[in-house]
């Protein structure tokens, strides 16, 4: 049940501080962007999404012999409540987890960068890309959620290796670390994809109007939107695909 993130001591001070600066800038940017994503209905959903991710991260599932993995949740949060709010969700979860001695305090910036910023950017990016090319129906939402979530995990692992190359505290063959990190995280990514697709699919089945990634797709037949309803999306707020 110990869900371990990057602990203290894996990275030298410059990389830890540098990642802290990146994380702080990212959180600042997301606080601005999240304003466009959050209203009276979606703000409580975003809080619940963060709480759900905290819970889901406690569930380590086995991936091969003697190894486990758990949800990261970046893609899930971004699809449910929007990418800016998604990064904030992960940052809140990581903050609370430090009180459970999970994820080093000095590694907070690294964890926000890898699990928040990188996984949201990659996971949500792939989700939107697939939503743009796939037919507008419910199974496309599931496929796009699964794929975005799956790829976001090895992408974060690759970013970890990149940081390790810059300022890891052990002198190791980077190729070996990269191969090991990516191969195990592809397996964890499959679990991430399944959990994300099931969660997004379940919520989209009952309340498609609450799912950010669904309401953004103009031709989706799932959505409730008309003039009687609250505006689902702010016009030209930069979220709509070109």
């Amino acid at each position, binding site marked *: 049940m110990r869900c371990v993130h990057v602990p203290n001591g894996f990275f030298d001070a410059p990389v830890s501080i540098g990642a802290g600066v990146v994380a702080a800038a990212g959180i600042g940017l997301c606080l601005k962007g999240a304003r466009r994503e959050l209203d009276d209905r979606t703000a409580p959903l975003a809080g619940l999404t963060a709480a759900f991710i905290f819970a889901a991260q406690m569930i380590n599932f086995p991936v091969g012999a003697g190894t486990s993995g758990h949800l990261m949740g970046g893609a899930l949060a971004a699809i449910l409540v929007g990418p800016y709010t998604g990064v904030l969700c992960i940052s809140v979860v990581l903050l609370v987890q430090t009180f*459970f001695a999970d994820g080093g305090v000095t590694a907070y910036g690294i964890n926000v960068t890898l699990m928040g910023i990188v996984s949201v950017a990659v996971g949500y990016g792939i989700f939107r890309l697939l939503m743009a090319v796939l037919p507008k129906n419910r199974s496309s939402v599931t496929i796009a959620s699964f794929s975005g979530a799956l790829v976001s995990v090895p992408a974060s692992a690759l970013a970890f290796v990149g940081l390790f190359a810059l300022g890891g505290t052990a002198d190791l063959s980077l190729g070996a670390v990269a191969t090991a990190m990516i191969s195990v995280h592809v397996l964890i990514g499959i679990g991430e994809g399944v959990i994300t697709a099931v969660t997004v699919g379940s919520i989209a089945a009952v309340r498609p109007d609450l799912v950010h990634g669904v309401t953004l797709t103009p031709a989706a037949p799932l959505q409730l939107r008309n003039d009687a309803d609250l505006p689902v999306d702010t016009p030209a707020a930069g979220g709509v695909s070109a």
Partner: protein
Amino acid sequence: MTKRFFFVFLLVAVIIAGFVSFYASASPDGLTKVAEDKGFASQEKDHQFKDSPLGDYGVKGVDNERLSGGLAGVIGVGLTLAVGGGLFWVVRRRSSAG
């Protein structure tokens, strides 16, 4: 309608953290495993809060492992909801109706 949906979503999170978490795999996770295999696990330094009352997903002083872990999980869900929900409520755009 929306309230009921939110309640069910929260209930699912509480059940996962409070009950299902007991059955989670105890094997090292991907990063820990790679760190062990490649020999940089020894670089890990103790967590600043390892002796916190909630350290390692257990409530200090509660000896029953299932109860201790479940309680820690539910507290974590509540804390995350309070911090996240509070932040998002402050950041949200206000509807003109108030």
